[in-house]
């Protein structure tokens, strides 16, 4: 098993250092096609990701299959999130009222820099130079650890995979399993080189590695004054927050320190406490493929005598209102970060998380990242539009339709000459043909968008239904040649000429 997630050159020592910490966690590294090219050349990585994602897929399918009312739960989850977005101002105010009434302090942050300033200010007031952290996408997104480091505060990641990523100066490559790109031997090497108290005779047995991390972190848990977390859900009508986890590091952070700071995107709300009955069924089964994750913590403000006696909640915008303003793309905010869409995505499975150059990889990243940043992006092309992501999404986000919409806008925005539009379109279609040639299951995908079928039927599209209509309004598009993905990459390679492999 030692080569399970191994590096391509099995004879060489594993590389401990990762890709480095970027300045912008939502936009780093090479462009998607270039990064994907590098990743695709890595046969080992593709095999490893294939094994890993197929394992999670099978687990998920099994536990979802045993729930007789799964589709009804998805419908409820989707409707609840739609309701949250519609009433977001009032629900945020309600949450704030309830958290405050229970002794919490609510802060608002327009952007990453403001959120980081707020957290740094709280930590400074506690006169500590170390905080313990629960894995959180929101704090990844704002680059909190780097911001705290500039203030002389070490933020210690306590989730095992996040710890591995942090020690290796790397970036996460999966929402749920951030170190999915590392194998056990690499992890042992990282611990031996970067974790001062690692036992010198540490082997690469996962149990031993986990116990080394336990011993390393326990002292920190027992002495930490401040913890920083994210939140999976916030209940507007009670002010209750929820963190879902496996290892118990979350409970340690949420329970032992005197002060807790939770950073949460403004979209994480659910209207009422009872609504948790929907999401606490949808999330674990979609995410880790378990009936329930080992630990879920719920807390409401401050409980005298139990847990942190000072609680701060930072409500983060950082581009979310931009996403909300976009009616076609708004539902990207419904995401509960389960990562099911990553695990079924033929593109993610082949290129891995780093190619997306964002803390949000995979299908959800391909729609959320460009919407959050508002920047020009090729991520909407990182998809074959096979529809598998929509089928597994526990809150029924129609990712393929949003991708089509975003592609249309890229073309419109760029004011590109028709031949550029052609190339962009062809690139997407070739990506599709690659995946479909490579795996019969995608050919059989039930929900192949109408756009693709239209192309197959006519040589030229003249008109697509909305949102494709935005695209076809002003130009005809030729049918893409039947070419495999590898041919496409090969052609790209030739055009790219002298570019270096792996440049970042």
């Amino acid at each position, binding site marked *: 098993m030692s080569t399970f997630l191994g590096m391509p050159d099995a004879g060489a020592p594993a590389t401990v250092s990762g890709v480095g910490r970027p300045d912008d966690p939502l936009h780093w590294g090479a462009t998607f096609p270039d990064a994907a090219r590098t990743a695709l050349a890595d046969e080992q990585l593709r095999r490893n990701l294939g094994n890993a994602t197929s394992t999670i897929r099978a687990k998920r399918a099994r536990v979802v299959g045993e729930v007789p009312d799964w589709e009804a739960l998805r419908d409820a989850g989707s409707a609840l999130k739609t309701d949250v977005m519609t009433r977001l101002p009032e629900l945020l105010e309600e949450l704030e009222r309830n958290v405050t009434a229970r002794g919490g302090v609510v802060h608002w942050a327009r952007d990453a820099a403001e959120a980081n300033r707020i957290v740094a200010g709280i930590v400074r007031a506690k006169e500590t130079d170390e905080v313990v952290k629960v894995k959180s996408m929101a704090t990844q997104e704002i680059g909190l650890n780097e911001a705290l480091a500039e203030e002389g505060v070490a933020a210690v990641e306590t989730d095992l995979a996040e710890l591995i990523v942090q020690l290796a100066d790397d970036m996460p490559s999966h929402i749920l399993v951030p170190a999915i790109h590392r194998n056990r031997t690499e992890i042992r090497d990282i611990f031996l080189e970067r974790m001062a108290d690692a036992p010198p005779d540490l082997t690469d047995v996962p149990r031993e590695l986990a116990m080394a991390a336990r011993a390393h972190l326990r002292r920190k848990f027992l002495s930490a004054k401040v913890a920083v977390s994210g939140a999976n859900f916030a209940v507007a009508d009670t002010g209750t927050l929820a963190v879902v986890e496996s290892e118990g590091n979350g409970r340690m952070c*949420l329970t032992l320190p005197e002060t807790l700071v939770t950073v949460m995107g403004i979209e994480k709300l659910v209207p009422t406490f009872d609504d948790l009955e929907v999401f606490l069924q949808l999330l674990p089964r979609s995410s880790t493929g378990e*009936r*329930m994750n080992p630990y879920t913590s719920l807390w409401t403000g401050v409980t005298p005598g139990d847990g942190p006696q000072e609680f701060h909640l930072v409500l983060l915008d950082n581009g979310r209102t931009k996403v909300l303003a976009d009616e076609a793309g708004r539902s990207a905010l419904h995401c509960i970060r389960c990562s099911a869409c990553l695990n079924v995505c033929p593109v993610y499975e082949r290129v891995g998380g780093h190619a997306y150059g964002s803390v949000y990889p995979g299908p959800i990243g391909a729609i959320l990242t460009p919407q959050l940043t508002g920047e020009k992006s090729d991520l909407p092309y990182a998809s074959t539009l096979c529809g598998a992501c929509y089928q597994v999404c526990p809150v029924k986000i129609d990712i393929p339709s949003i991708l089509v919409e975003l592609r249309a806008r890229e073309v419109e925005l760029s004011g590109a000459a028709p031949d550029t539009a052609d190339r962009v379109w062809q690139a997407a279609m070739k990506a599709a043909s690659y995946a479909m040639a490579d795996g019969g299951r995608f050919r059989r995908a039930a929900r192949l968008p109408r756009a693709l079928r239209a192309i197959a039927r006519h040589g030229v599209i003249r008109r697509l239904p909305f949102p494709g209509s935005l695209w076809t309004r002003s130009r005809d598009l030729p049918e893409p040649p039947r070419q495999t993905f590898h041919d496409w990459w090969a052609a790209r390679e030739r055009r790219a000429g002298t570019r270096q492999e792996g440049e970042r």
Partner: protein
Amino acid sequence: MSDARTEVLARVREALGRGTDAAPAPAVVPRGYRPAGEHAPGSEPVLELLVDRLVDYRAHVHRVAGAEVADVVARLVEEVRTVAAADADDSHRAAARPAPGSVVVPDGLDRAWLAGLSGDDVRADARDEPLTATELDGACAVVTAARVAVAETGTIVLDAEPDQGRRAISLVPDVHVCVVRTDQVVQTVPEAVRLLGEHPGRPQTWISGPSATSDIELDRVEGVHGPRTLHVLLVS
């Protein structure tokens, strides 16, 4: 420049194309999912399902009559002590295993359950008289009651009332012995949420098996930071 709160809320309203007018009414959410299971709380099929799920997560389940709780608790504590003492000789595991220590209990726990332990072995914890984290770290086990259990998911929920204690006490010791009454076992998640929703402000810990990680090659390792051993006493 307005303050962040005002500005974020204004951006949200603008994004929705709304002024400061009254909120739309809550949407009617389709709730076609099962609000409850087909079996009554505490019924035999529900108990069997819970046991099956707990065992699947590698929790240890003991079905006992009320009068037997004290004996079983005493036996489990004895076992923990023996294992801990043996491990102390093995330097590799000793670092991760606590030395033999006292048994922590919340001060509202039914004292009859502890009748098999000597009084010196037991340390009570309360909100107004809490043990320190270091003291908890030195304990060999914790015994608590529970609020509710969910059979379908193999979940036990604690809500920090006096018979369950502060959240920290069921977290730091390495062995958790949790006593669940059969009438506390419901079949589905919604049944449990409705019950817990009667006191939503209480801190809750939902526990489904011992702590675990699959972060290394998706290989499941039980017991990371939380208790590595979970004993559930199902008491009829």
